[in-house]
Every structure is written in structure tokens, then in C-alpha cells.
């Protein structure tokens, strides 16, 4: 090896994010000191982001199979059969660390990465969603981050040409130092036309496609596997720059190439770029890979092997091609103006050999690079149980009217129109339900069949009780899909936590995964793809545990999908599910009473399933005229959202005599839906519910221009709308904040 490469010192090893015992493991594995390039390769393969070393043993406990599952976790994205020879391909992935450092590019490349995961499988992307978590609105940096992230998400998706149909935005001071950007993409493919990373055949060309390789993003995955400290700002150069135009060309070229029959295996170059993609293709296929790096298209002079192997330049793909189709493939890529270069070939020696100008830079056992990555059973402590908050012990600081206006105009529950109007949610002409409802609905290629999507989680529940919070995240995603009439199919999970080396954080991760597993099993809702983002922590302060659940459901006929808007005056408003007035960890307790405390509402999964199946059957029978799940903010917030969407008010019965109004109107008991039905069907529906073992209660009647909560002061819809729609634009139009962060 040339002497210009740095000597391998303990400091250099540490700078690569490798612990001393992990370095020992490397020495034992290869029987010698690694070269600089090899050290870089190990750091790329063995960091938390790529190896899942802290979470793997727990992820294995999740249910991942089902009658419709074609491909579960382990590939670029999950694949689920939707009938008629068609399959839905989807995954959610985080881009948290880069988005905090450089919000526009961080978010944009997050979207780009997940779109690439989906079309790598042979699917054309048809929808995108995102789940964004920002710090407190009062934090000096928040507005800048919201503005940049939203523009970045939109900038990439809009140009690429995929409708961004749903998602969520949340604020909490625990994200002040670590925001979350979780991006989900969904694609459609032929069920028998899925492409995988597994290479087959010796001596086949390994081909590099797409954009050129630069020095951007080197060590991005390593950065995403460490906490932030004061110097994180200096990591800006590790954030990649996205080019949605190149990605659009790559999409079209890849789909054209796949249709030509030239592709044996394909893997996108995402985190840790060329290293991860090449190793994965070889290891999965029990093959070796030889790379000759002088053939890699670069956009900078004099790049070293180390730099090329670790670059995270975007919009690149690696493929193994049938040699006789090489010319066809080259012609397709030339037409789309993209680079096409044979950079290596498959071998039978199970080695990962990297050459630059004939000089051997790395020679490693390819299977062990992945298989022998460290795997930890990290110590964890159970999160202490929280006391229940008894509704009788909580005094309401204001009346129902004021509480509702406060909640509807809060950072947490106000309208997200300012956000989703920056996303093209209409392109492709199949968006049946746009952002703003319980779940987004699209048609499958202009036909009758539809798909519903949602992304959800309630971090304040997960913080208080990771197990119940994990369950609730799944249950709520399932409920969102049910509320539009879809049959829930499967889940992608994006687990965002703090430093797993701290037992209490590891306890949150373990608790949430257990809860997710329990709910997924009970609801026949397998996990088919996912991503783990750990070390979301700054100076010892971790984010709220945030296991975002992305979910997909199927509709036989989009014309039957339900929406949350009240449709007509004089219809009966029914509440499905049981209410105990659970205020612990509710939005009301947090935002109206100013208390973040108590146990979160438990989820009864049997009742969840019963209630949901009943609601879905009413939608499918065409009886339900409007449907909305009851979640953040409770019953009255849900009614208000239905009223605003339909521009029709409602008169509601009050709480039972003796029961506090704030528990009834703002409690966050789980497994509940609001459904409207024509007046003359109300009795029949309540009887049918009873027969199905489901509680259905008539709670009011639609009509008028206001909400009338029992015998309390009415709230005009206009007033409510102003409060609900006003927060976001007002906040974003606020005074400019000095670009230099205060801390």
C-alpha cells in the first residue's frame, strides 16, 4: 500500500466510529491490520445505520410474513400482493441528522433515497408521505428548519413527479436539537416483475449507472450513527446534495432497462454508497465482487479508493447485467444522458476485492463483512410505569369552548395546509383523497381499485409507556386506514430513538418494538420494511421515542372510500368505541392544562379489531356518510375537524351527569371512531353494532354553522376555522430569525 495513506492508529479507528473491541474483531477476521480503504469499508458496513447492530435482535421478533407478503424486510423495500398480478412496494426511511445540519438538502435527499429504494425493486413510485418532527416553535432554529425541510421535501418530490399525499408534522421541545425527517415512498409493480439485490452468475459485469461520484457525503452513515455535539455544524460537508432531475432520468432509464430483460441484480447506492451496494449484491448471491475503481465515473480529479468507496453522492445505481445485453443497456442509459460504466465483475472466490489502477486497495471476505458485523444485546431498563391521571383530580382551567379553540389553533393540532400545499399532491391524476384526511387514497392506475396510506405515531405516549405507545402507533395507523374504508395490508416502521448505549433509551426501543409486534400480530398487519435511526440525541438529551408507523391499505373500489367531512345537515353522529375520559398524556392535559404527565391511554387490541372491522363494514355497505377516527385532542377535536371539512356544524349531547366535560370531550381513549349516518339508519346501525359486540352511541346531530357542546357555549365554525387555519401561516410569517443558532 502507498505510504501516502494514513497509518492505522487508535485515534483513526475511533474517528471511524469503531469501538476498540470492534477493531479487535476486524483484526481477528482478516488476520492482519486493515488498509486505510479497508478501515473505511468496515466503518461503512459496521456502523449502526447500516448494520442495525443494536436493534437487530429485537427487530427479529416482529411479525414479517402474511398471505399477501411477497417480500419482507431485508431488501430495498417491502412488497405486498394487491391482487390482479399487481404488487405494492413501500418503505419509510429517516434522514434526521443531515436534515438538522442542512434542512433543504437533507430532506430532499431523504426523499430521493426512499424513492430510489422503491424503483430499485422495479416499481414506479406512485405516492410519497413524510413524518416530520421539529423542536418547540419558540426555539430560535425551528422556523428555519421547518421552512427548509418542507421546501426540500417538496423540491425533490415535485420535480421527480410523485404526488406527496400525506404525512404528519409535530412540534416538541425534545426535538430542539434533533429533528426527524422520515420519508416514505410507495410504488406499483407487477407481482412477478420484482427486482432484487441478489446477484447470480460468475464473471458477469457489475455496472455503475446514474450520476457521477464526488466527494460529498463521505461518512454520512457514520455521522448518522453518532450523537450530535457542539461541532456538528462542521459536518455540513457530509450532507449530500440532491438532484431530482437526475433521479427522474434514472427512474425512467432503470424501468426501461428492467423491461429489456438485461438486469440480473440491482442495488441502489444509498448509505455508504458503492461499498454497501457491491457487498450486498455479492453476499446475497454467494459471490465475490471485484471492482476496478478507475472506471467509476467521477466528477472530481484524483479521488482515492477510500473516497470512492465511501462517497454518498446521490442518484447512483449498481447492477449486475446479462453480458449479452450490455449494449442494449448502454444505449438506454446514453439516451437518458446518464453515465454507464462497467466497474467490475462477479467472481467465485467470495472476496470483495477493490483495485485502483491495478493496485489492490482492499481484499476482504464478502460474506463476513455483513454477517460478522457486531450484534449487541445491549443492556436495557424498563421505563418506569406512570400513574394514571384520574379525571376527577384534574380541574379544567377554562370552559369547553375556550379549550377547543386553544387545541384547534395549537402548534400540534392546527391545519397543516401551509405544509402540504407546497407538495404536488395531484400529479399522476389518481389522488382520490389528498392530505388532510385520516389516510390518503389513490387509485391504482386509473382503475377502481385503490390504495390508502398513512404515517402515524404519538411520541408522548411512547415516552410515558413504550409498550403501549408502540401498540398505539400501529393501532392508530390501522385505524386511519380503516376510517377511509381500506383493508389494512402491512406496515413499514421507522424507529427513531436516542443513544442505545444508555439502558433507559434501549429500554424505550425494546418496549416500543414489543408493543409494535404485539399490535401487528393482533391486527394481522405484518412489518415488511423499515429503518432504525438511533443516536438522535444532543448533549445527552434524547428525542421522544418516535417509532413512526407507515402503513398501506387496499380498497376494492375507490368510489366507496369514506371521508371525514360532514355531508348533510340532520344526520346522526355516532361514536364507535368505549369512552372513559382518559386524560393522561392527552393533548388537552398538555396544551390546555399545561401538564405532560400520566400513563397514556391503553389500547385494547381485541376491541380495536372489532370496532375497526365494524366501521369498515358500514363504509363498504354505503351506510356511513362520514368517518373519522378519534385521536389527538379527543372527541370534540374530531367533531370539529369533520365540521370544518364539511362546512356543517353539529349539536352534541354533553357528558353524562356527574362526569366532567373535559374528560368526555377531550379524553383520548383508543379504538374510537366518529361516524355519521342518515337519521333513519341510526337505530339500525346501533343494533348492528351491538350484535357485533361493538359500542355505538348516538352523541349528536349535524347541522347549523356552529358546534354546540351540550349546554355549554357554542363555537362558530368561522371562528374555529380562523383558529385552525391561522396558526401555521402566522407562525411561518413571524420575524426572521438570525441564521446563526443561539446555542
Amino acid at each position: 500500500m502507498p505510504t501516502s495513506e494514513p497509518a492505522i492508529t487508535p485515534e483513526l479507528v475511533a474517528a471511524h466510529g469503531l469501538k476498540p473491541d470492534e477493531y479487535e474483531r476486524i483484526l481477528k477476521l482478516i488476520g492482519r491490520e486493515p488498509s486505510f480503504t479497508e478501515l473505511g469499508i468496515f466503518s461503512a458496513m459496521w456502523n449502526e445505520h447500516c448494520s442495525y447492530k443494536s436493534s437487530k435482535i429485537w427487530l427479529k421478533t416482529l411479525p414479517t410474513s402474511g398471505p399477501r407478503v411477497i417480500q419482507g424486510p431485508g431488501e430495498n423495500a417491502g412488497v405486498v400482493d394487491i391482487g390482479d398480478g399487481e404488487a405494492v412496494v413501500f418503505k419509510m426511511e429517516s434522514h434526521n441528522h443531515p436534515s438538522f445540519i442542512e434542512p433543504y438538502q437533507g430532506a430532499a435527499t431523504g426523499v430521493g433515497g426512499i424513492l430510489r429504494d422503491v424503483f430499485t425493486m422495479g416499481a414506479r413510485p406512485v405516492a410519497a408521505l413524510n413524518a416530520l418532527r421539529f423542536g418547540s416553535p419558540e426555539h430560535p432554529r425551528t422556523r428555519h428548519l421547518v421552512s427548509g425541510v418542507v421546501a426540500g421535501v417538496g423540491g425533490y418530490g415535485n420535480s421527480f413527479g410523485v404526488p406527496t399525499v400525506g404525512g404528519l408534522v409535530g412540534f416538541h421541545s425534545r426535538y430542539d436539537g434533533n429533528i426527524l425527517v422520515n420519508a416514505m415512498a410507495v410504488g406499483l409493480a407487477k407481482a412477478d416483475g420484482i427486482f432484487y439485490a441478489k446477484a447470480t452468475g460468475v464473471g458477469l459485469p457489475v455496472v455503475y449507472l446514474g450520476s457521477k461520484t464526488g466527494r460529498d457525503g463521505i461518512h454520512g452513515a457514520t455521522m448518522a450513527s453518532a450523537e450530535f455535539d457542539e461541532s456538528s455544524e462542521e459536518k455540513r460537508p457530509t450532507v449530500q446534495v440532491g438532484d431530482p432531475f437526475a433521479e427522474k432520468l434514472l427512474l425512467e432509464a432503470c424501468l426501461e432497462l428492467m423491461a429489456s430483460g438485461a438486469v440480473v441484480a440491482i442495488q441502489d447506492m444509498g448509505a455508504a454508497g458503492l461499498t454497501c451496494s457491491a457487498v450486498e449484491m455479492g453476499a446475497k448471491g454467494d459471490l465475490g465482487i471485484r471492482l476496478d475503481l478507475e472506471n467509476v465515473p467521477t466528477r472530481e480529479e484524483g479521488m482515492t479508493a477510500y473516497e470512492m468507496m465511501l462517497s454518498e453522492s446521490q442518484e447512483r445505481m449498481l447492477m449486475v447485467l446479462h453480458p449479452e445485453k450490455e449494449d442494449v443497456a448502454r444505449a438506454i442509459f446514453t439516451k437518458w444522458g446518464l453515465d454507464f460504466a462497467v466497474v467490475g465483475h462477479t467472481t467465485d472466490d467470495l472476496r470483495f476485492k477493490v483495485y485502483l489502477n491495478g493496485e489492490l486497495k482492499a481484499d476482504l471476505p464478502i460474506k463476513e463483512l455483513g454477517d460478522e458485523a457486531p450484534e449487541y444485546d445491549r443492556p436495557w431498563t424498563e421505563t418506569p410505569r406512570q400513574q394514571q391521571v384520574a379525571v376527577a383530580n384534574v380541574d379544567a382551567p377554562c370552559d369547553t369552548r375556550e379549550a377547543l379553540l386553544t387545541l384547534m389553533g395549537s402548534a400540534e393540532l392546527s391545519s397543516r395546509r401551509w405544509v402540504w400545499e407546497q407538495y404536488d399532491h395531484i400529479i399522476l391524476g389518481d389522488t382520490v383523497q389528498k392530505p388532510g384526511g385520516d389516510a390518503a387514497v389513490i387509485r391504482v392506475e386509473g382503475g377502481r381499485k385503490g390504495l390508502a396510506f398513512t404515517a402515524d405515531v404519538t411520541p408522548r405516549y411512547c415516552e410515558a409507556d413504550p409498550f403501549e405507545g408502540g401498540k398505539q402507533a400501529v393501532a392508530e395507523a390501522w385505524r386511519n386506514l380503516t376510517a377511509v374504508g381500506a383493508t389494512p395490508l402491512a406496515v413499514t416502521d421507522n424507529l427513531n430513538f436516542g443513544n442505545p448505549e444508555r439502558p433507559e433509551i434501549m429500554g424505550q426501543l425494546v418496549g416500543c418494538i414489543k408493543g409494535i409486534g404485539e399490535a401487528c400480530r393482533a391486527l394481522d398487519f405484518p412489518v415488511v420494511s423499515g429503518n432504525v435511526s438511533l443516536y438522535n440525541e444532543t448533549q445527552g438529551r434524547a428525542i421522544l421515542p418516535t417509532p413512526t408507523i407507515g402503513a398501506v391499505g387496499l380498497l376494492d373500489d375507490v368510489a366507496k372510500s369514506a371521508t371525514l367531512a360532514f355531508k348533510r345537515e340532520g344526520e346522526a353522529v355516532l361514536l364507535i368505541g368505549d369512552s372513559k375520559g382518559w386524560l393522561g398524556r392527552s393533548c388537552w392535559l398538555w396544551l390546555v392544562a399545561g401538564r405532560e404527565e400520566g400513563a397514556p391511554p391503553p389500547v385494547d387490541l381485541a376491541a380495536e379489531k372489532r370496532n375497526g372491522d365494524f366501521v369498515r363494514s358500514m363504509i363498504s355497505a354505503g351506510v356511513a356518510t362520514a368517518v373519522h377516527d378519534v385521536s389527538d385532542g379527543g372527541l370534540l377535536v374530531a367533531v370539529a375537524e369533520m365540521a370544518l371539512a364539511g362546512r356543517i356544524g353539529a349539536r352534541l349531547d354533553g357528558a353524562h351527569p356527574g362526569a366532567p366535560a373535559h374528560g368526555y370531550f377531550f379524553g383520548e381513549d383508543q379504538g374510537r371512531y366518529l361516524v355519521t349516518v342518515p337519521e333513519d339508519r341510526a337505530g339500525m346501525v346501533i343494533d348492528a353494532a351491538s350484535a357485533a359486540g361493538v359500542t355505538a352511541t348516538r352523541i349528536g346531530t349535524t347541522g347549523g354553522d356552529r358546534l354546540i357542546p351540550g349546554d355549554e357555549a357554542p363555537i362558530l365554525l368561522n371562528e374555529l376555522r380562523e383558529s385552525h387555519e391561522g396558526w401555521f401561516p402566522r407562525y411561518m410569517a413571524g420575524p426572521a430569525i438570525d441564521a446563526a443558532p443561539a446555542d
Partner: protein
Amino acid sequence: MNAAVLVFPGSNRERDVVRALKAGSGQEPKLVWHAETELPAGTDLVVLPGGFSYGDYLRCGAIAARAPIMDAVRAHAARGGLVLGICNGFQILVEAGLLPGILTRNANLRFICHLQHLKVERADTAFTRAYQPGQTIEVCVAHGEGNYFADAETLARLEGDGRVAFRYCDAEGNVGGDANRNGSLNDIAGIYSEKLNVLGMMPHPENLIDAAVGGTDGAKLFAGLAQAA
């Protein structure tokens, strides 16, 4: 009707407009790659679809306006052939000199996507014959640079010659005010060429052709074109 839909690198609504043309005319339009130099024989209508041609990294539409196929489009227009540019297509037509004025950043400096009402200024052109004059229709917009600008003289000429095709309005048909969200001069959403055979518009009629997906007001533009050609 023989329609040709141009595809530039970065076009992304070509499939949407193909679907709308097919629904309106019953005929499958031809996709024409930007590097071609001729339109298919017998082309009646050329459509420049929405998207981000060449990434729109220079001025929107500036590079596409110089693509090899554009000479053929100019010749087609000069012969009186129909040309429709939607969104990025409108930006390309302006850059190509087929329509006057320019499209600049939206007044709020953000990309905006929402349903949008338009007033149909005249219903005697090949594009609007299926509408009523003065009719209010609902389509959608999705753009970052749709803010129409032209100098006073050009605007006066457009207005005087009846070359404004659509204006932004509210549901009741009141033009301008809050209904003009991108800041376009004279609330202009679309304009014609002198001979009324070239139309450029920012909104997307091709995405409002189906009751299941927001509405059908856009469908009449394509149905009208099918009758005209």
C-alpha cells in the same frame, strides 16, 4: 385528432396529459422525444407537458426551448397547427418565443399546489369551445414559478386582442384578489398566440378529468380539442 406529446428530460406530467387526451379524443397520442427533429406526420396538436425539464436549474423552460424538436414545433405553429403548453410547457413556449412575457417565482416564493378556479375568457377557440364564455371552472395548479409578467405594452396588446385565455378567480367567478395566489399580472393564468392556435397555461386541466379525482372541469378542454382538430 392526432396529438403528439413532447417528452423532455425531466417532463413529469406527460402520462397525465396522455390520459386526458385519450379520454377526450379516444385516440392514443404519440410521445415524441425531445431529440427528434420532426413531428409525426399528420400531427394536429402538439402538447408540451408539465414537469421540470432539464431540472429547471437554469430559467424554467430555457433549455427545453432550445431542444432539437422545437424547430418543428415552431414550424407547426407557424402553419396554424395547434400547440398547448401546460405549466412547464407554458414556460417553454414563452422561452421559445411562441408566446410573449415570462413566468417568474410565485409571489410568496413557495411552490403551491391546490385546486384553483379559472374564468374562461372566451369560448370560441379550439381549446375552449366546449366551455361557455365567462364560465368559471375548477382545475388545479402545481408550480413554483407561475407568476406571469409582461411589459405594459405587451399586456395592453394581449388584453386588446382578446388573447387572455384564463384568469384566476374564486368559486363565484370574482377575478383576482386572494384567488390570484401567484401574483400574475392581470390575474393571467393562460394566454393565446396572435392566431389563437397556441395556448400556454399554468393550471393543469389534465388532472381534473374525473369525478373520483377532484372533478371533471378540465376534461372539456380535451373534448373541445378533439372536436376542433
